């Protein structure tokens, strides 16, 4: 039998593995930072709820808001990934990399978050 897959795998550039590992490390670090911040803010919020001695209804409505924001997480990631992808595509059109590449990425990510913010405001109304 012809070993198609082995031949194809051997042709993959070793730099691809490196890029995958680099991206994995960066994503892990990003996630760690965001998780730490989230835990800290949650802890602060829960302490405030206890200190203020708010009613059970208000406390549950605030916690309900927390779970509602999780519903929008997929839209948020859609906006981030779409605009990052578009930014990378535009950057690819204007190689080599330079200061302009950073600008393109910053603008595209900002547009993504602006779109997400507009979506949230529309949803609140």
């Amino acid at each position: 039998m012809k070993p198609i897959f082995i031949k194809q795998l051997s042709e993959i550039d070793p730099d691809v593995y490196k890029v995958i590992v680099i991206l994995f490390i960066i994503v892990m670090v990003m996630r760690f930072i965001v998780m730490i911040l989230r835990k800290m803010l949650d802890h602060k919020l829960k302490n405030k709820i206890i200190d203020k001695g708010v009613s059970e209804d208000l406390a549950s409505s605030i916690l309900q808001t927390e779970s509602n924001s999780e519903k929008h997480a997929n839209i948020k990631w859609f906006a981030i990934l779409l605009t990052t992808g578009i930014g990378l595509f535009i950057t690819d059109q204007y190689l080599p990399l330079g200061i302009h590449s950073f600008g393109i990425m910053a603008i595209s990510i900002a547009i993504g978050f602006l779109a997400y913010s507009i979506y949230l405001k529309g949803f609140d109304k």
Partner: protein
Amino acid sequence: MKTTHVSDHDIQQFTFDLSECEADIIKHMHSCGACKERAESYLLLSNTIKDQPEPVLEFNLTELVLDQLPQSSNKESTYTYFIYFLIIASIGVVVTALYLLKDTLIHLFSNTTTISTSFIISVAMLITFALSLDLVRSFNKKTNMLNY
């Protein structure tokens, strides 16, 4: 000036909240003996109620409540130590792995150009910054809900 007697509500307002009382009522109260007498009886009643001693429970409520609270068991403290052990063990594993793979990790970034590495890192930082801002915005919104 009012010629008829004022209502109970007006007498109470005159007795306990003179600043909110109308001028007509004040004039009537100073001239009418019957209304003045009723105002004095309200004041007496109020002072008598204030002088009443505060009710005190015949048993020690604090002690009874404290007795009802569940005591922390040894099982829970063992569980806490186990969690600490797991945390320390996982940190140890990560540090050991980083130490053993340090040459590989350094080599990982050696072939990539500085500009491309900083490009990837800056994109990641931008996304992290935006996500953090989103978290802080959400936190502020919830804090505002608490204040109102």
